[in-house]
């Protein structure tokens, strides 16, 4: 195994990463992902990393959507399954299941949580005025999680409030 040879094979940064992404934009950028067939988006600046699914360590008596914790470079990061939290689709774990790790700083404390989604799809540019108000007739997703809707072609993307996502309800200490 020649490391030098391997190193030259690795593409120089920029060759791949810039391709197809329009960086010249005035609006905000959002990462869109799939829950079942529905499209959702979060502010891309909150995204710490995207990792493949691995079995986490269970937290005793945690809510069903908290799958457990993983070790992300020495930091203990809890994993929340968004499909279970919002009750959308089936929570299956396949090779394409991904975890989006989001970091938000609030009250001078940053919090990092991983969210399980079905697939990551695209980076979306949208100006502030393109974000429409969400319908008040709620579905499975409680309204306070939704910042707004963005029309992308024929599809509608639901923009999620990351801070609200990160709030974890206090454990019910006893569950039966």
């Amino acid at each position, binding site marked *: 195994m020649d490391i030098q040879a391997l190193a030259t094979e690795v593409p120089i940064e920029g060759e791949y990463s810039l391709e197809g992404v329009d960086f010249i934009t005035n609006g905000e950028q959002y990462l869109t992902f799939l829950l079942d067939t529905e499209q959702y988006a979060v502010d891309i600046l909150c995204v710490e990393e995207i990792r493949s699914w691995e079995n986490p360590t269970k937290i005793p008596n945690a809510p069903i959507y908290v799958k457990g914790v993983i070790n992300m470079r020495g930091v*203990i990061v809890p994993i929340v399954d968004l499909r279970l939290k919002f009750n959308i689709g089936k929570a299956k774990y396949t090779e394409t299941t991904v975890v989006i790790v989001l970091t938000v700083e609030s009250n001078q404390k940053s919090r990092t949580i991983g969210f399980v989604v079905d697939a990551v799809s695209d980076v979306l540019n949208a100006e502030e005025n393109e974000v429409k108000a969400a319908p008040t007739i709620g579905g499975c997703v409680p309204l306070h999680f939704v910042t707004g809707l963005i029309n992308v072609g024929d599809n509608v993307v639901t923009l999620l409030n990351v801070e609200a996502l990160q709030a974890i309800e206090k454990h019910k200490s*006893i569950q039966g």
Partner: protein
Amino acid sequence: MSIELSQFIPSFLEESFEGLELMESSLLSLQPGDDEAINSIFRAAHSIKGGAGTFGFDQVTEFTHLVETLLDEMRDGRREIAQADIEILLDSVDCIRILIEAARDDTSYDEDKIAKTSQALEQTLNTSQSVTSNENSPKADSGLTLWNILFVPEHHLVQTGNDPLLLFSALADLGFLSVQAKINELPALTDMDAEEIYIGWQLELKTYASEADIREVFEWVEDECRLEISQMEAVNLPAEDVPKKEVNTSEEAIESSPEIAAKPTAPSEKDDTPSPLSQSNQQAPTANKQDKSSPKAKQEVGSIRVGVDKVDMLINLVGELVITQSMLSELGNDFEMNKVERLTSGLEQLLQNTKELQESVMRIRMLPISFAFNRFPRLVHDLSKKTGKEIELVIKGEQTELDKTVMEQIGDPLVHLVRNAVDHGIEFSDVRVAKGKPAKGTITLDAYHLGGNIVIEINDDGGGIDREAVFNKAVEKNIIEPTTSLSDSQVFDLLFEPGFSTAKELSDISGRGVGMDVVKRNIQALGGRIQVESTPGKGSTFKVNLPLTLAILDGQLVRVGTETYIIPLITIVESLQAKSELINRVSGDVILYRLREDNVPVIPIYQLFNICADSESIDDALLVVVEADGLKIGLMVDDLLAQQQVVIKSLEDNYQQVEGISGATILGDGSVAMILDIPGMIQLATHRAQRNQQVNIQTKIAEGETV
């Protein structure tokens, strides 16, 4: 003068506190004729005075000056060392500490105490032909004064790094300054050396400041100039004419040239200090700086002094690590299977290096326990004076090292235990003599390492704990039933129950509402234990068992189903295989295991945590018997794995506190494992049982209604 002195303030504070500690301990052990001790006390006081002067902590300087004068007399043998003097000096040490703390935090302080002590000091000084203590106080009245200052520096002044401009701007901070250069000594251009100074200055300063304040400005150049300071007249200007200074102007004044700086700038007055000590209501410019830097100083509390040997060792280890790394990377560059052996040995070396490095890094946080023990001689001295009991304090093992965080948090519980020993343990001299013991009681503090823990012992040779009195009191307070039969150690453990105090009357030493239960809780919060041993008539020993550090924990890895948990080793009593004939089921669903004489309730972890286990049957299951809060329980696990040290990581950072879990750690394979919180698990199990009982009762009632 306004060079960035403020950056040295934290080190000054640190050194001052160390000096104060030294003064205190030397004073306590001071014997007449012990010149070395007096000298060291004097030196400590002197450097505090000098430092405080430099940084403009005037109150500290003035007060310390009095102390120094007294010490000076003692040092020269002009004064006999009387016990009363030592008491005054001890009080003074307290006062200096208060003053320095007040200067650091920029807060107010107990002026009465300072005034009283300084009066006592002055009185003591006046009883002999003492030097005048306060040469500047008569002039330091608050009137405006016009000073005439002649300042003729020697030619080489600028070569020593001093700048007259800075001096003048510092003066301008004190009040109105007008500057006139005297150039009559200016040599001909051909004889002039560009690096020398030939000008003298005639300055007029209209200020509230005292002569001492002005002299302080010239403190660094005193020996290199001709300095004449004379008072012209007292100007009785109304105070408003000198505008109050804003916080920022001191910096502006530094930048501006002296001529411009002659604009009205007077430092802010402190009118909330009416004590005689604070007569100089002018503060040197650095004192203004202090306003801004004090919050910073507070944040920087966490500094450690590390011995050079420890640092050298670290550097050595890092060097070895680098060598190992380069060896391994060379091996990896061109790897073939026949080099496996070298790889293994290289990895072993890496393991060794990492381990040693880890140990050395941990050692940096370790401080000798003398840091915590140092305050006790004074405490015992004061307490014995207050109670009228004769007590000798013996300290052993003060070089035993302990983690800094643990040390900081163990201080208060130890103080409480020592107070307790003085108050409740040691008897009065007449009682002691009647019992045939030496009149002087002894309290021994001892510290030593035991396994991965440190043990601190507080021993007194007093009356011991009255078992019956404790028992009766506990019955009286409804902590136990009168019929309960308890072992000695169980009775002594009652002392740590909330709301328990056997002192017949409350004294202001220990019976102040903060009970032994708090002591126990604090020690437990540190992951430690406390034990009591006592022999009636001979005395008692409190043993505090603490982990060496809070960051690392000795754990027993256990497996339940697919999950790995870590049980803190310190809580484990024993591990055993359950024998079915020793299992009893009582009160519905509680499993009890007969462990010799005790019945230990069994908590199956899979049930408590709602997970799947290999075997859900108690028969032949593995039990880990743990103890917390004096309660033993058996945890049912599937398998016992290795014992290892684990690094504790917080779950709360990104998640929240979890009942029954104290934290998480990362195992060798990179996976996460939960660390069990035994008291939390007991609580969780108790809550759950209570809820189940209530649910049962409610369903019973509901059934009753439907029938």
